[in-house]
């Protein structure tokens, strides 16, 4: 089902943030904001959930560590043990550097791709919110329109808060 949105476009982050706060106080919560840089304070107003990326990073790193350890242990102690200077086949201090490198590699790669996956990003993605110059110097505050009455309240609020333009965008 197409989703109707009302978008207020501002030329400053302060004005947009103020409008978002005002809307929240009036019970007209905004659903999203499109901005050229991260705006601090908008997360609380939009009540966004904390990112799960730290968890992904941790489990990616743990997998890397386990992989590195298993690989080295298997090669040197199970598959083809070699006596080098009478040292133990499982001399683990020598495994530390590769364990560390693969931990970092797996953690980093999984964080990066988890980010793309979470935000549904890929080379052929298109967004209905392009063309508002929010990548350049405009700040867009998006309201989800569940009812007609909300539309009127929102647009009067946006006008009052100094929005340059109000657009309806169907998602």
């Amino acid at each position, binding site marked *: 089902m197409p989703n109707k949105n009302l978008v207020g476009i501002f030329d400053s982050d302060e004005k947009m943030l103020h409008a978002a706060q005002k809307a929240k106080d009036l019970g007209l919560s905004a659903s999203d904001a499109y901005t050229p840089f991260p705006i601090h304070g908008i997360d609380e107003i939009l009540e966004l959930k904390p990112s799960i990326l730290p968890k992904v990073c941790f489990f990616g790193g743990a997998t890397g560590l386990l992989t590195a350890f298993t690989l*080295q242990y298997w090669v040197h102690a199970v*598959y083809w043990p070699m006596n080098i200077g009478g040292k133990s086949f499982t001399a683990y201090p020598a495994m530390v550097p590769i364990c560390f490198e693969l931990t970092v590699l797996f953690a*980093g790669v999984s964080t990066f791709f988890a980010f793309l996956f979470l935000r549904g990003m890929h080379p052929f993605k298109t967004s209905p919110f392009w063309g508002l110059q*929010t990548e*350049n110097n405009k700040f867009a505050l998006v309201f989800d329109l569940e009812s007609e009455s909300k539309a009127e309240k929102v647009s009067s609020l946006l006008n009052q808060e100094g929005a340059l333009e109000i657009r309806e965008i169907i998602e």
Partner: protein
Amino acid sequence: MTTATASSEILRPPLVEGGKTYGQITDDICAPMEKRPPLGWFVAFTVAGLALLWGVIMVTDLIWTGVGTWGLNKTVSWGFAITDFVFWVGIGHAGTLISAILLLFRQKWRTAINRSAEAMTIFAVMCAGLNPLLHMGRIWRGLYWLFPYYPNTMGPLFVNFRSPLLWDVFAVSTYLTISLLFWYMGLLPDLATAAAHAKGAIRRFIFRTLSLGWSGSARTWRNHEKASLLLAGLATPLVLSVHTVVSMDFACAIVPGWHSTIFPPFFVAGAIFSGFAMVLTLLTLSREFLGFKDYITLKHIDAMAKVTLLTSMIVSMAYLTETLIGWYSANTFERFYFINAATGPYRYCYWTQMLCNVVAPQFFWFKKFRRSPVVAFIISIFINIGMWLERFNIIVIGLHRDFLTSSWTMYHPTYVDWGLLIGLFGLFFTCFLLFSRSLPMIAMSEIKHVLSSEKHGEKQHA
């Protein structure tokens, strides 16, 4: 609130000069990508391209003939290639330091220079990685020698996980991968900005595709900031580990002058030192020729000069410590290494290294010199030369007169050795010049963020 704003204005001059608006920042930073480059760019590109071409010819000769075409011999079995390897990996370190460690320390001045420093890291690590590959002689066997794979078709043995040389393979390839991801992560919003700013449809399509559909929604930004922070947190210990592992190639051997426990921190400090010198070289040039004077200000040059001075002091301290320990060890071979370095046939290299790395950076004690792009550029060239020589001296002076006097010899680089050195500089500068024309060289979203917080007098948000 007002007093806080006023005092912060007095204490901290703005990081972005010229009273810019958000739109102007986009225009300024997209400008070199959209208009015809200046003549100087074409001259530089031609020189770099010719150097690269010469390198390609020399490398073809090398692969065709084998490593015998280098000046190496049985005694000095590591020469220019390993020197170049350590040098270029070291150059890369400053990029990660600027982008990751300074992000964690919330140093806002990094925003103007982090993008180009990260690009520098990637190109430098590419240059570095080529050297050990070429040094193998038969690079088509590289996969078998470098990485474990199963079933192993070349015999029953796997790679030796207990060798520092193999740790290097893992360290450098992880470093390249993480640096690329971190760089691309930061580029995503700017690629979208470049797409929005582009005039032509093809250009817009390319940037839009590369930006992977970036929309700048609050949810995306929230995850993006978290992911950048995580990658920075991962890159910080990684960068320290990479040069530590590189130093272990030497420290784990028994060659006098190599077998030293001070090597890991000494190499890391040297890497940051040489890397910052290269950043200074590149940025003093690009602010001059690409019109970024309002973004890469004298304050940035000043800050980088300070880091260079600090790391120069650490490196000098390490030289002293090493020499002292060489004497204190009462080991004949260890003592001989230092005497031979200072008075032997390679003494000119040794004293040039000292002049470039210990003496030249001392000018940065004076504010007048730290804030002069010309002086900073000249000193940075001295340091680049000095740090290359440092690696050359460690490798060649260590090897050429070791335990047996009967095997003493000299290393004379051939034109193929020089060709590789020139070719790597060609590769590096060709990549950097292409980057300066095709991608946003300064992180626009971060600059806008800094500008916004400067406007609002915020202090602690980063």
